[in-house]
Protein backbone atom coordinates (compact mmCIF):
# COMPACT_ATOMS: atom_id res chain seq x y z
CA UNK A 1 0.00 0.00 0.00
CA UNK A 2 2.73 2.44 0.88
CA UNK A 3 4.51 1.51 -2.33
CA UNK A 4 1.40 2.56 -4.21
CA UNK A 5 1.23 5.75 -2.19
CA UNK A 6 4.79 6.65 -3.03
CA UNK A 7 4.15 5.91 -6.65
CA UNK A 8 1.01 8.04 -6.68
CA UNK A 9 2.78 10.87 -4.92
CA UNK A 10 5.76 10.77 -7.29
CA UNK A 11 3.42 10.67 -10.26
CA UNK A 12 1.56 13.75 -9.05
CA UNK A 13 4.76 15.55 -8.17
CA UNK A 14 5.86 15.09 -11.74
CA UNK A 15 2.83 16.96 -13.02
CA UNK A 16 3.25 19.80 -10.60
CA UNK A 17 1.54 22.54 -12.56
CA UNK A 18 -1.59 20.61 -13.48
CA UNK A 19 -1.80 19.28 -9.96
CA UNK A 20 -1.49 22.77 -8.48
CA UNK A 21 -4.32 24.09 -10.65
CA UNK A 22 -6.55 21.13 -9.81
CA UNK A 23 -5.86 21.46 -6.09
CA UNK A 24 -6.51 25.20 -6.25
CA UNK A 25 -9.86 24.64 -7.99
CA UNK A 26 -10.97 22.11 -5.41
CA UNK A 27 -9.65 24.29 -2.58
CA UNK A 28 -11.62 27.32 -3.70
CA UNK A 29 -14.79 25.31 -4.09
CA UNK A 30 -14.29 23.78 -0.64
CA UNK A 31 -13.72 27.28 0.75
CA UNK A 32 -17.05 28.37 -0.68
CA UNK A 33 -18.86 25.29 0.58
CA UNK A 34 -17.50 25.52 4.11
CA UNK A 35 -17.72 29.29 4.18
CA UNK A 36 -21.42 29.21 3.38
CA UNK A 37 -21.98 26.54 6.01
CA UNK A 38 -20.01 28.42 8.63
CA UNK A 39 -21.86 31.66 8.01
CA UNK A 40 -25.13 29.79 8.13
CA UNK A 41 -24.35 28.19 11.48
CA UNK A 42 -22.95 31.38 13.00
CA UNK A 43 -25.82 33.48 11.73
CA UNK A 44 -28.29 31.07 13.24
CA UNK A 45 -26.53 31.02 16.57
CA UNK A 46 -26.13 34.75 16.65
CA UNK A 47 -29.75 35.40 15.87
CA UNK A 48 -31.12 32.70 18.12
CA UNK A 49 -29.01 33.83 21.02
CA UNK A 50 -30.48 37.28 20.95
CA UNK A 51 -34.14 36.94 21.72
CA UNK A 52 -35.20 35.90 25.20
CA UNK A 53 -36.92 37.23 28.25
CA UNK A 54 -39.55 39.21 26.36
CA UNK A 55 -43.14 38.11 25.77
CA UNK A 56 -44.00 40.67 23.13
CA UNK A 57 -42.33 43.39 21.10
CA UNK A 58 -44.50 46.32 20.07
CA UNK A 59 -43.73 48.78 17.29
CA UNK A 60 -45.46 50.92 14.68
CA UNK A 61 -47.43 48.84 12.17
CA UNK A 62 -44.90 46.79 10.23
CA UNK A 63 -44.18 43.29 8.97
CA UNK A 64 -43.33 41.14 12.01
CA UNK A 65 -39.94 40.22 10.64
CA UNK A 66 -39.09 43.85 9.91
CA UNK A 67 -40.03 44.84 13.44
CA UNK A 68 -37.94 42.02 14.85
CA UNK A 69 -34.95 42.98 12.75
CA UNK A 70 -34.78 46.62 13.70
CA UNK A 71 -35.84 46.36 17.32
CA UNK A 72 -33.67 43.41 18.31
CA UNK A 73 -30.95 43.10 15.72
CA UNK A 74 -30.61 46.79 14.89
CA UNK A 75 -30.82 45.92 11.22
CA UNK A 76 -32.69 48.39 9.11
CA UNK A 77 -34.70 51.33 10.42
CA UNK A 78 -38.27 51.84 11.55
CA UNK A 79 -40.36 53.94 9.22
CA UNK A 80 -42.64 55.08 12.01
CA UNK A 81 -42.74 55.45 15.77
CA UNK A 82 -44.98 54.52 18.66
CA UNK A 83 -46.52 57.46 20.48
CA UNK A 84 -45.78 57.96 24.17
CA UNK A 85 -49.47 57.79 24.99
CA UNK A 86 -49.67 54.29 23.61
CA UNK A 87 -46.63 53.29 25.63
CA UNK A 88 -48.26 54.52 28.81
CA UNK A 89 -51.53 52.83 27.97
CA UNK A 90 -49.67 49.60 27.43
CA UNK A 91 -47.82 49.88 30.72
CA UNK A 92 -51.08 50.58 32.53
CA UNK A 93 -52.70 47.31 31.49
CA UNK A 94 -53.40 44.84 34.30
CA UNK A 95 -51.87 41.95 32.48
CA UNK A 96 -48.61 43.76 31.67
CA UNK A 97 -45.82 43.25 34.24
CA UNK A 98 -43.16 45.54 32.75
CA UNK A 99 -42.39 47.59 29.65
CA UNK A 100 -39.03 48.72 28.30
CA UNK A 101 -39.31 51.29 25.53
CA UNK A 102 -36.40 51.87 23.17
CA UNK A 103 -35.54 54.76 20.92
CA UNK A 104 -33.25 54.20 17.93
CA UNK A 105 -31.82 56.56 15.38
CA UNK A 106 -28.58 57.91 16.70
CA UNK A 107 -25.12 56.50 16.45
CA UNK A 108 -21.62 56.85 17.81
CA UNK A 109 -18.84 56.23 15.31
CA UNK A 110 -20.92 53.62 13.53
CA UNK A 111 -22.31 51.93 16.63
CA UNK A 112 -26.05 52.15 17.29
CA UNK A 113 -27.28 54.24 20.17
CA UNK A 114 -30.23 52.80 22.07
CA UNK A 115 -32.27 55.21 24.13
CA UNK A 116 -34.07 53.29 26.86
CA UNK A 117 -34.85 53.09 30.55
CA UNK A 118 -32.60 51.49 33.18
CA UNK A 119 -35.18 48.66 33.31
CA UNK A 120 -33.60 47.44 30.07
CA UNK A 121 -30.72 45.97 32.05
CA UNK A 122 -33.01 44.38 34.56
CA UNK A 123 -35.47 42.63 32.26
CA UNK A 124 -33.82 41.89 28.95
CA UNK A 125 -31.81 38.71 28.67
CA UNK A 126 -29.66 37.00 26.10
CA UNK A 127 -29.51 33.20 25.82
CA UNK A 128 -31.59 33.04 29.00
CA UNK A 129 -28.95 34.86 30.95
CA UNK A 130 -29.49 38.32 32.45
CA UNK A 131 -27.25 41.16 31.34
CA UNK A 132 -24.23 41.71 33.52
CA UNK A 133 -22.02 44.73 33.98
CA UNK A 134 -18.29 44.08 34.00
CA UNK A 135 -17.72 47.64 35.08
CA UNK A 136 -19.92 50.32 36.49
CA UNK A 137 -23.71 50.31 36.43
CA UNK A 138 -26.79 51.56 34.59
CA UNK A 139 -27.18 55.22 33.71
CA UNK A 140 -28.46 57.58 36.33
CA UNK A 141 -27.53 61.14 35.32
CA UNK A 142 -28.95 62.69 32.16
CA UNK A 143 -25.84 62.34 30.03
CA UNK A 144 -24.65 58.97 31.28
CA UNK A 145 -23.96 56.19 28.81
CA UNK A 146 -23.57 52.41 29.10
CA UNK A 147 -21.45 50.64 26.48
CA UNK A 148 -21.75 47.19 24.96
CA UNK A 149 -18.63 45.03 25.28
CA UNK A 150 -17.41 45.47 21.69
CA UNK A 151 -17.89 49.24 21.66
CA UNK A 152 -15.76 49.64 24.76
CA UNK A 153 -13.11 47.26 23.48
CA UNK A 154 -12.88 48.56 19.91
CA UNK A 155 -12.95 52.25 20.78
CA UNK A 156 -10.87 51.82 23.89
CA UNK A 157 -13.30 53.42 26.29
CA UNK A 158 -13.06 53.14 30.07
CA UNK A 159 -15.30 54.33 32.86
CA UNK A 160 -15.38 58.08 33.07
CA UNK A 161 -14.46 58.69 29.43
CA UNK A 162 -16.36 61.23 27.43
CA UNK A 163 -18.07 60.59 24.06
CA UNK A 164 -20.17 62.44 21.49
CA UNK A 165 -23.18 60.98 19.72
CA UNK A 166 -24.05 61.56 16.07
CA UNK A 167 -27.45 62.05 14.49
CA UNK A 168 -28.54 59.27 12.16
CA UNK A 169 -26.85 55.94 11.75
CA UNK A 170 -24.08 56.67 9.25
CA UNK A 171 -20.62 55.71 10.46
CA UNK A 172 -18.94 58.95 9.51
CA UNK A 173 -21.35 61.64 10.35
CA UNK A 174 -21.19 65.39 9.97
CA UNK A 175 -24.19 65.76 12.25
CA UNK A 176 -22.61 65.52 15.67
CA UNK A 177 -24.28 66.31 18.95
CA UNK A 178 -20.98 67.66 20.19
CA UNK A 179 -22.59 70.31 22.32
CA UNK A 180 -23.67 67.49 24.58
CA UNK A 181 -20.94 64.95 25.35
CA UNK A 182 -21.78 61.80 27.32
CA UNK A 183 -19.93 60.14 30.16
CA UNK A 184 -19.31 56.38 30.24
CA UNK A 185 -20.73 55.00 33.48
CA UNK A 186 -21.09 51.30 32.72
CA UNK A 187 -19.70 48.60 30.45
CA UNK A 188 -21.59 45.37 29.76
CA UNK A 189 -20.15 41.88 29.56
CA UNK A 190 -19.93 40.08 26.19
CA UNK A 191 -23.20 38.56 25.05
CA UNK A 192 -22.39 37.57 21.46
CA UNK A 193 -25.42 39.60 20.33
CA UNK A 194 -26.00 43.06 18.81
CA UNK A 195 -26.05 44.42 22.36
CA UNK A 196 -22.28 44.25 22.26
CA UNK A 197 -22.26 46.86 19.51
CA UNK A 198 -24.67 49.24 21.17
CA UNK A 199 -24.41 52.36 23.25
CA UNK A 200 -27.19 52.76 25.83
CA UNK A 201 -28.46 56.09 27.12
CA UNK A 202 -31.69 57.23 28.77
CA UNK A 203 -34.74 58.21 26.74
CA UNK A 204 -34.51 61.66 28.23
CA UNK A 205 -30.96 62.01 26.99
CA UNK A 206 -32.12 61.33 23.43
CA UNK A 207 -34.69 64.07 23.85
CA UNK A 208 -32.15 66.44 25.35
CA UNK A 209 -29.67 66.22 22.51
CA UNK A 210 -32.40 66.77 19.92
CA UNK A 211 -33.88 69.85 21.57
CA UNK A 212 -32.13 72.20 19.25
CA UNK A 213 -32.70 70.15 16.12
CA UNK A 214 -35.45 71.06 13.72
CA UNK A 215 -36.25 68.88 10.72
CA UNK A 216 -33.00 67.02 11.02
CA UNK A 217 -30.71 70.04 11.19
CA UNK A 218 -28.96 71.46 14.17
CA UNK A 219 -29.67 75.05 15.12
CA UNK A 220 -27.43 76.57 17.74
CA UNK A 221 -26.67 74.72 20.98
CA UNK A 222 -28.97 72.66 23.12
CA UNK A 223 -30.24 74.40 26.26
CA UNK A 224 -27.96 73.91 29.27
CA UNK A 225 -30.64 73.00 31.81
CA UNK A 226 -33.55 71.34 30.03
CA UNK A 227 -36.82 71.08 31.92
CA UNK A 228 -38.56 67.80 32.72
CA UNK A 229 -41.23 68.71 30.22
CA UNK A 230 -38.70 69.24 27.50
CA UNK A 231 -37.19 65.86 28.29
CA UNK A 232 -40.45 63.97 28.01
CA UNK A 233 -40.19 61.65 25.01
CA UNK A 234 -43.06 62.07 22.55
CA UNK A 235 -42.53 58.77 20.81
CA UNK A 236 -40.33 55.71 20.88
CA UNK A 237 -39.22 53.19 18.24
CA UNK A 238 -40.43 50.03 19.97
CA UNK A 239 -41.42 48.58 23.32
CA UNK A 240 -40.37 45.28 24.90
CA UNK A 241 -43.20 43.87 26.98
CA UNK A 242 -43.24 41.35 29.80
CA UNK A 243 -46.60 39.95 30.86
CA UNK A 244 -47.84 38.84 34.25
CA UNK A 245 -49.14 35.63 32.78
CA UNK A 246 -47.98 34.07 29.58
CA UNK A 247 -51.48 32.90 28.89
CA UNK A 248 -52.49 36.47 28.18
CA UNK A 249 -50.03 36.71 25.30
CA UNK A 250 -52.55 36.25 22.52
CA UNK A 251 -55.07 38.58 24.06
CA UNK A 252 -52.60 41.43 24.58
CA UNK A 253 -51.15 40.90 21.12
CA UNK A 254 -54.60 41.19 19.63
CA UNK A 255 -55.42 44.26 21.68
CA UNK A 256 -52.30 46.05 20.48
CA UNK A 257 -52.84 45.04 16.85
CA UNK A 258 -56.39 46.37 16.97
CA UNK A 259 -55.71 49.51 18.92
CA UNK A 260 -57.84 52.38 17.64
CA UNK A 261 -55.48 55.13 18.69
CA UNK A 262 -52.60 54.32 16.43
CA UNK A 263 -51.57 51.54 14.10
CA UNK A 264 -49.21 49.18 15.88
CA UNK A 265 -47.91 45.63 15.60
CA UNK A 266 -47.18 43.32 18.51
CA UNK A 267 -45.03 40.29 17.75
CA UNK A 268 -44.14 37.18 19.67
CA UNK A 269 -40.35 37.06 19.21
CA UNK A 270 -40.24 33.24 18.80
CA UNK A 271 -42.82 33.31 16.06
CA UNK A 272 -41.26 36.24 14.22
CA UNK A 273 -37.90 34.50 14.39
CA UNK A 274 -39.40 31.41 12.85
CA UNK A 275 -40.86 33.53 10.06
CA UNK A 276 -37.44 35.04 9.53
CA UNK A 277 -35.93 31.58 9.24
CA UNK A 278 -38.39 30.34 6.69
CA UNK A 279 -37.60 33.40 4.58
CA UNK A 280 -33.89 32.86 5.03
CA UNK A 281 -34.29 29.13 4.57
CA UNK A 282 -34.77 29.59 0.86
CA UNK A 283 -31.70 31.74 0.59
CA UNK A 284 -29.75 29.23 2.65
CA UNK A 285 -30.74 26.36 0.42
CA UNK A 286 -29.95 28.31 -2.72
CA UNK A 287 -26.51 29.15 -1.40
CA UNK A 288 -25.85 25.58 -0.35
CA UNK A 289 -26.91 24.26 -3.73
CA UNK A 290 -24.67 26.76 -5.50
CA UNK A 291 -21.73 25.84 -3.32
CA UNK A 292 -22.33 22.14 -3.97
CA UNK A 293 -22.36 22.78 -7.71
CA UNK A 294 -19.10 24.65 -7.47
CA UNK A 295 -17.52 21.72 -5.66
CA UNK A 296 -18.79 19.38 -8.36
CA UNK A 297 -17.27 21.68 -10.96
CA UNK A 298 -13.95 21.55 -9.14
CA UNK A 299 -14.02 17.76 -9.03
CA UNK A 300 -14.96 17.55 -12.68
CA UNK A 301 -11.93 19.70 -13.37
CA UNK A 302 -9.89 17.07 -11.58
CA UNK A 303 -11.56 14.40 -13.70
CA UNK A 304 -10.68 16.26 -16.88
CA UNK A 305 -7.07 16.64 -15.78
CA UNK A 306 -6.74 12.95 -14.96
CA UNK A 307 -8.51 11.78 -18.11
CA UNK A 308 -6.25 13.99 -20.18
CA UNK A 309 -3.19 12.18 -18.95
CA UNK A 310 -4.55 8.66 -19.42
CA UNK A 311 -3.25 8.18 -22.97
CA UNK A 312 0.23 9.37 -22.06
CA UNK A 313 0.29 6.99 -19.18
CA UNK A 314 -0.45 3.83 -21.12
CA UNK A 315 3.27 3.09 -21.22
CA UNK A 316 3.47 3.64 -17.48
CA UNK A 317 0.70 1.12 -17.02
CA UNK A 318 2.40 -1.39 -19.33
CA UNK A 319 5.63 -1.06 -17.35
CA UNK A 320 3.75 -1.70 -14.12
CA UNK A 321 2.09 -4.73 -15.61
CA UNK A 322 5.44 -6.07 -16.71
CA UNK A 323 6.62 -5.71 -13.13
CA UNK A 324 3.77 -7.86 -11.90
CA UNK A 325 1.17 -5.26 -10.99
CA UNK A 326 -2.36 -6.36 -11.84
CA UNK A 327 -5.02 -4.16 -13.45
CA UNK A 328 -6.43 -3.77 -9.95
CA UNK A 329 -3.19 -2.14 -8.88
CA UNK A 330 -3.44 0.24 -11.82
CA UNK A 331 -7.00 1.06 -10.71
CA UNK A 332 -5.78 1.60 -7.18
CA UNK A 333 -3.01 3.91 -8.33
CA UNK A 334 -5.30 6.19 -10.29
CA UNK A 335 -7.88 6.20 -7.52
CA UNK A 336 -5.21 7.01 -4.98
CA UNK A 337 -4.13 9.98 -7.07
CA UNK A 338 -7.69 11.30 -7.08
CA UNK A 339 -7.96 10.83 -3.34
CA UNK A 340 -4.67 12.63 -2.78
CA UNK A 341 -5.79 15.53 -4.95
CA UNK A 342 -9.11 15.75 -3.15
CA UNK A 343 -7.50 15.60 0.28
CA UNK A 344 -4.98 18.27 -0.68
CA UNK A 345 -7.82 20.40 -2.00
CA UNK A 346 -9.80 19.93 1.21
CA UNK A 347 -6.87 20.82 3.45
CA UNK A 348 -5.96 23.86 1.39
CA UNK A 349 -9.58 24.99 1.33
CA UNK A 350 -9.86 24.56 5.08
CA UNK A 351 -6.70 26.55 5.61
CA UNK A 352 -7.98 29.32 3.38
CA UNK A 353 -11.23 29.32 5.33
CA UNK A 354 -9.45 29.91 8.61
CA UNK A 355 -7.27 32.62 7.13
CA UNK A 356 -10.24 34.39 5.62
CA UNK A 357 -12.30 34.05 8.79
CA UNK A 358 -9.53 35.54 10.89
CA UNK A 359 -9.17 38.43 8.47
CA UNK A 360 -12.86 39.19 8.07
CA UNK A 361 -14.12 38.53 11.60
CA UNK A 362 -14.23 42.15 12.78
CA UNK A 363 -15.90 43.43 9.60
CA UNK A 364 -18.63 40.79 9.63
CA UNK A 365 -19.31 41.49 13.30
CA UNK A 366 -19.61 45.19 12.69
CA UNK A 367 -21.83 44.85 9.62
CA UNK A 368 -24.29 42.23 10.73
CA UNK A 369 -23.73 41.36 14.35
CA UNK A 370 -22.72 37.84 13.41
CA UNK A 371 -19.75 36.61 15.42
CA UNK A 372 -17.60 34.22 13.34
CA UNK A 373 -15.85 31.45 15.17
CA UNK A 374 -12.29 30.18 14.71
CA UNK A 375 -12.84 26.89 16.49
CA UNK A 376 -12.76 23.32 15.18
CA UNK A 377 -15.18 22.59 12.35
CA UNK A 378 -18.71 21.74 13.45
CA UNK A 379 -20.31 18.33 12.89
CA UNK A 380 -22.09 19.54 9.78
CA UNK A 381 -18.81 20.88 8.39
CA UNK A 382 -17.08 17.53 8.94
CA UNK A 383 -19.97 15.88 7.13
CA UNK A 384 -19.55 18.26 4.22
CA UNK A 385 -15.83 17.56 4.01
CA UNK A 386 -16.50 13.84 4.12
CA UNK A 387 -19.01 14.16 1.28
CA UNK A 388 -16.45 16.06 -0.77
CA UNK A 389 -13.96 13.26 -0.15
CA UNK A 390 -16.49 10.62 -1.15
CA UNK A 391 -17.39 12.62 -4.24
CA UNK A 392 -13.69 12.76 -5.06
CA UNK A 393 -13.47 8.99 -4.76
CA UNK A 394 -16.50 8.50 -7.01
CA UNK A 395 -15.16 10.94 -9.60
CA UNK A 396 -11.72 9.33 -9.35
CA UNK A 397 -13.22 5.93 -10.06
CA UNK A 398 -13.94 7.04 -13.61
CA UNK A 399 -10.38 7.43 -14.91
CA UNK A 400 -9.34 4.58 -12.62
CA UNK A 401 -11.76 2.14 -14.18
CA UNK A 402 -10.87 3.33 -17.66
CA UNK A 403 -7.23 2.71 -16.87
CA UNK A 404 -8.20 -0.69 -15.46
CA UNK A 405 -9.91 -1.76 -18.63
CA UNK A 406 -7.16 -0.48 -20.88
CA UNK A 407 -4.50 -2.14 -18.77
CA UNK A 408 -6.37 -5.40 -18.88
CA UNK A 409 -6.53 -5.25 -22.65
CA UNK A 410 -3.07 -3.84 -23.25
CA UNK A 411 -1.19 -6.13 -20.92
CA UNK A 412 2.49 -5.46 -21.36
CA UNK A 413 2.27 -4.41 -24.95
CA UNK A 414 3.68 -0.97 -24.99
CA UNK A 415 2.08 0.70 -27.96
CA UNK A 416 4.93 2.46 -29.68
Amino acid at each position, binding site marked *: MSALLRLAWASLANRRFTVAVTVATIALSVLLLLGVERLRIEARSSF*LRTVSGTDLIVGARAHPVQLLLYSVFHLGDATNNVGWDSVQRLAARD*DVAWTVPISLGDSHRGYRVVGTTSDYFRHLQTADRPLAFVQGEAFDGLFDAVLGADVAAKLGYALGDSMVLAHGTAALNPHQHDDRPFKVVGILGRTGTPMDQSVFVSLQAIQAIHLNWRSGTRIGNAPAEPTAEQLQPSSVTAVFVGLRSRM*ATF*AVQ*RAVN*EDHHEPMTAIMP*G*VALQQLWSMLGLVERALQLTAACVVLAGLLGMLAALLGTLSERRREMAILRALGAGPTTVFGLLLLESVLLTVLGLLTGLMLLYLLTAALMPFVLQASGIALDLGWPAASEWRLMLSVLLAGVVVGAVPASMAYRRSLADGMMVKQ
Partner: protein
Amino acid sequence: MKFAGTSLLRLVFGALVWVGLQSAAMAEVRGIDWLELIPPEELKEMESQPIVDHNGTPIAPDYSNSHPVLTMNGVEGRIPGYIVPITVTEENTISEFFVVPYFGACIHVPPPPPNQIIYVKPEKPIEMTEIWAAYWIEGKLKLENQANSLGQSSYSMELTSVTPWEG
Protein backbone atom coordinates in the same frame (compact mmCIF):
# COMPACT_ATOMS: atom_id res chain seq x y z
CA MET B 1 -32.19 -25.56 7.66
CA LYS B 2 -34.96 -26.60 10.02
CA PHE B 3 -33.34 -24.72 12.87
CA ALA B 4 -33.09 -21.54 10.79
CA GLY B 5 -36.71 -21.92 9.82
CA THR B 6 -37.87 -22.05 13.44
CA SER B 7 -35.86 -18.97 14.37
CA LEU B 8 -37.29 -17.10 11.43
CA LEU B 9 -40.78 -18.08 12.39
CA ARG B 10 -40.17 -16.88 15.91
CA LEU B 11 -38.82 -13.58 14.62
CA VAL B 12 -41.84 -13.00 12.41
CA PHE B 13 -44.23 -13.92 15.20
CA GLY B 14 -42.48 -11.60 17.60
CA ALA B 15 -42.60 -8.78 15.11
CA LEU B 16 -46.30 -9.25 14.57
CA VAL B 17 -46.97 -9.22 18.29
CA TRP B 18 -44.93 -6.04 18.69
CA VAL B 19 -46.80 -4.33 15.86
CA GLY B 20 -50.06 -5.46 17.36
CA LEU B 21 -49.16 -4.02 20.73
CA GLN B 22 -48.15 -0.74 19.19
CA SER B 23 -51.45 -0.36 17.36
CA ALA B 24 -53.28 -1.36 20.50
CA ALA B 25 -51.39 1.30 22.36
CA MET B 26 -52.20 3.77 19.63
CA ALA B 27 -55.83 2.83 19.72
CA GLU B 28 -55.78 3.45 23.43
CA VAL B 29 -54.56 7.03 23.23
CA ARG B 30 -57.41 9.25 24.25
CA GLY B 31 -58.25 12.03 21.88
CA ILE B 32 -58.82 15.33 23.66
CA ASP B 33 -61.28 17.76 22.17
CA TRP B 34 -60.68 21.49 22.59
CA LEU B 35 -64.28 21.92 23.65
CA GLU B 36 -63.66 19.62 26.60
CA LEU B 37 -61.37 22.27 27.99
CA ILE B 38 -64.22 24.78 28.30
CA PRO B 39 -66.72 24.48 31.20
CA PRO B 40 -70.28 23.68 29.93
CA GLU B 41 -71.75 26.97 31.21
CA GLU B 42 -69.16 28.99 29.28
CA LEU B 43 -69.87 26.94 26.16
CA LYS B 44 -73.54 27.80 26.45
CA GLU B 45 -72.69 31.47 26.79
CA MET B 46 -70.46 31.35 23.73
CA GLU B 47 -73.28 29.81 21.69
CA SER B 48 -75.56 32.68 22.60
CA GLN B 49 -73.08 35.30 21.44
CA PRO B 50 -73.71 37.13 18.13
CA ILE B 51 -72.34 35.61 14.93
CA VAL B 52 -69.04 36.96 13.67
CA ASP B 53 -69.72 40.20 11.80
CA HIS B 54 -66.95 41.12 9.37
CA ASN B 55 -68.30 44.61 8.92
CA GLY B 56 -68.57 45.92 12.44
CA THR B 57 -65.86 46.78 14.93
CA PRO B 58 -64.08 43.74 16.40
CA ILE B 59 -65.39 42.46 19.71
CA ALA B 60 -63.00 43.19 22.55
CA PRO B 61 -62.27 39.90 24.33
CA ASP B 62 -63.26 39.69 27.98
CA TYR B 63 -61.62 36.75 29.66
CA SER B 64 -62.48 37.50 33.26
CA ASN B 65 -65.06 34.73 33.11
CA SER B 66 -62.91 32.19 31.39
CA HIS B 67 -62.16 29.20 33.61
CA PRO B 68 -60.48 25.86 33.06
CA VAL B 69 -62.24 22.53 33.59
CA LEU B 70 -60.72 21.20 36.79
CA THR B 71 -61.47 17.57 36.05
CA MET B 72 -59.17 17.67 33.03
CA ASN B 73 -56.20 17.79 35.39
CA GLY B 74 -54.09 14.66 34.89
CA VAL B 75 -55.88 13.52 31.74
CA GLU B 76 -53.55 11.76 29.34
CA GLY B 77 -54.23 11.93 25.65
CA ARG B 78 -53.51 13.76 22.47
CA ILE B 79 -54.95 16.91 21.06
CA PRO B 80 -54.73 18.31 17.53
CA GLY B 81 -53.50 21.88 17.40
CA TYR B 82 -50.99 24.46 16.23
CA ILE B 83 -47.63 25.05 17.86
CA VAL B 84 -46.65 28.63 18.66
CA PRO B 85 -43.01 28.88 19.79
CA ILE B 86 -42.22 31.03 22.80
CA THR B 87 -38.54 30.36 23.24
CA VAL B 88 -36.22 29.14 20.50
CA THR B 89 -32.80 27.78 21.43
CA GLU B 90 -29.47 28.41 19.74
CA GLU B 91 -29.79 25.10 17.96
CA ASN B 92 -33.07 26.23 16.43
CA THR B 93 -35.16 23.93 18.61
CA ILE B 94 -38.20 24.97 20.61
CA SER B 95 -37.85 24.87 24.39
CA GLU B 96 -41.23 26.43 25.28
CA PHE B 97 -44.39 26.66 23.23
CA PHE B 98 -48.13 27.17 23.23
CA VAL B 99 -50.64 24.79 21.69
CA VAL B 100 -53.68 26.57 20.30
CA PRO B 101 -56.76 25.33 18.44
CA TYR B 102 -56.28 27.59 15.44
CA PHE B 103 -53.64 29.77 13.97
CA GLY B 104 -55.24 33.18 14.25
CA ALA B 105 -55.25 34.72 10.85
CA CYS B 106 -58.69 36.22 10.74
CA ILE B 107 -58.67 39.31 12.95
CA HIS B 108 -62.39 39.19 13.39
CA VAL B 109 -62.17 36.02 15.41
CA PRO B 110 -61.21 36.70 19.02
CA PRO B 111 -57.85 35.33 20.15
CA PRO B 112 -58.03 32.06 22.06
CA PRO B 113 -59.09 32.50 25.70
CA PRO B 114 -56.78 31.10 28.42
CA ASN B 115 -58.73 27.83 28.60
CA GLN B 116 -58.02 27.23 24.92
CA ILE B 117 -54.28 27.64 25.32
CA ILE B 118 -51.95 24.89 26.56
CA TYR B 119 -48.49 25.85 27.74
CA VAL B 120 -45.77 23.23 27.20
CA LYS B 121 -42.19 23.21 28.39
CA PRO B 122 -40.78 19.85 27.25
CA GLU B 123 -37.91 18.16 29.06
CA LYS B 124 -35.92 18.17 25.88
CA PRO B 125 -36.48 20.95 23.32
CA ILE B 126 -38.37 19.73 20.25
CA GLU B 127 -37.33 20.10 16.64
CA MET B 128 -38.46 23.29 14.93
CA THR B 129 -42.03 22.98 13.62
CA GLU B 130 -44.08 24.79 11.01
CA ILE B 131 -46.32 27.49 12.51
CA TRP B 132 -48.90 26.90 9.80
CA ALA B 133 -49.07 23.12 10.19
CA ALA B 134 -51.25 21.11 12.55
CA TYR B 135 -49.79 18.55 14.95
CA TRP B 136 -50.90 15.86 17.35
CA ILE B 137 -49.58 16.89 20.73
CA GLU B 138 -49.61 13.99 23.14
CA GLY B 139 -49.05 14.12 26.86
CA LYS B 140 -50.62 14.63 30.26
CA LEU B 141 -52.71 17.73 30.90
CA LYS B 142 -51.99 19.63 34.10
CA LEU B 143 -53.58 22.61 35.70
CA GLU B 144 -51.13 25.26 36.86
CA ASN B 145 -51.95 27.75 39.50
CA GLN B 146 -50.43 30.88 38.09
CA ALA B 147 -50.44 34.18 39.82
CA ASN B 148 -51.83 36.46 37.19
CA SER B 149 -53.96 39.54 37.14
CA LEU B 150 -57.07 37.42 36.62
CA GLY B 151 -56.18 35.03 39.42
CA GLN B 152 -56.97 31.90 37.44
CA SER B 153 -55.16 28.69 36.77
CA SER B 154 -54.37 27.55 33.23
CA TYR B 155 -53.55 24.43 31.25
CA SER B 156 -50.08 23.07 30.77
CA MET B 157 -48.98 19.67 29.50
CA GLU B 158 -46.25 17.15 30.24
CA LEU B 159 -45.20 16.32 26.74
CA THR B 160 -44.93 12.78 25.42
CA SER B 161 -44.67 13.38 21.69
CA VAL B 162 -45.35 15.72 18.82
CA THR B 163 -46.34 14.19 15.50
CA PRO B 164 -47.61 15.84 12.32
CA TRP B 165 -51.37 15.79 11.87
CA GLU B 166 -52.24 14.14 8.61
CA GLY B 167 -55.98 14.57 8.26
